[in-house]
């Protein structure tokens, strides 16, 4: 149904499997990776799309992953949505606001997540008329 590119970065296998299953059932292609290093590798390989990023990961957390993306110039063309158990982010997010398009708190409603991904995919993929 869709060639929308979505990447889920989360160290919890259960979350990766559940989100992947839900998105695939709705006809969307989704790549899942367990950490920031793997996310950066996919970006180096040319991935562009919506990135669903867990904040707390053991090796490289979500904030550090985004800082690496920016330092390596891998952020353009991507919409980053943070997925986190924290109601409010801490000061590590300061300075990264412009790269993070949305922030969703776990446990999230899968339909709300899908709706957000659809909207941001539409923004990235010029699903809107090409004039403003």
């Amino acid at each position, binding site marked *: 149904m869709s060639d929308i590119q979505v990447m889920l970065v989360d160290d919890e296998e259960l979350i990766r499997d559940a989100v992947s299953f839900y998105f695939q059932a709705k006809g969307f292609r989704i790549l899942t990776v367990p950490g920031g290093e793997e996310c950066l590798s996919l970006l180096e390989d040319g991935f562009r799309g919506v990135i669903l990023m867990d904040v707390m990961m053991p090796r490289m957390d979500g904030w550090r992953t985004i800082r690496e993306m920016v330092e390596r110039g891998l952020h353009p063309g991507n919409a980053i949505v943070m997925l986190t158990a924290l109601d*409010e982010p801490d000061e590590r997010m300061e300075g990264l606001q*412009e790269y993070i398009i949305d922030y969703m708190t776990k446990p999230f409603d899968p339909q709300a997540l899908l709706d957000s991904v659809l909207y941001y995919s539409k923004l*990235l993929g010029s699903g*809107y008329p090409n*004039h403003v």
Partner: protein
Amino acid sequence: MFNNRIVMIAVSTGGPITLKKLFADMPPLNAAVVIILHIQPGMDRLVAKGLAAVASMPVSVAEHGEFLERGRIYLAPGGCHLTLEGNRRIMLHEGPRVNFVQPAADVAMKSLGRPFMGKIVGVVLTGMGNDGAAGIYHIKEIGGTTIAQDRKTSAIYSMPNSALQTGAVDFVFSPDKICWKIVELMNEGAN
């Protein structure tokens, strides 16, 4: 025409979808709308296109030197600050980040002057940090009306909460209520 009717909005993370909700049902306003969204260059145009697809008013990325017109929405571009000269002319500036961001809503809001026979509304929506708080305080000081998004509907509550902590916020609402409050303030019984 001298523009003395302005709605200025500060918004960050969670902003694109919140703005979509805010403007989807809003009729054309008898005011210019200026949005300061923390967004990277390149993404600003995409967000403007998304907003243009649902809004009843034309949406554009603000350009240096242009004059505000009522009934239009202007989105500040990423990578620079925006101020208003004489409450009507858009000026884009290079310069250091303010509150860790660029564009910064505090910079834009604090450039507003007290309007003569006009009306200014300042709004702070979802986002991380405290950008917009000093700006809201300034808008209140120059006689404007101020609104903050509520905790329940904010993806991140710290920006609206920082504005609230200034004691200068008149209303705390969800985006759909903010929509109708702005319509009431700008479109009812005024020229």
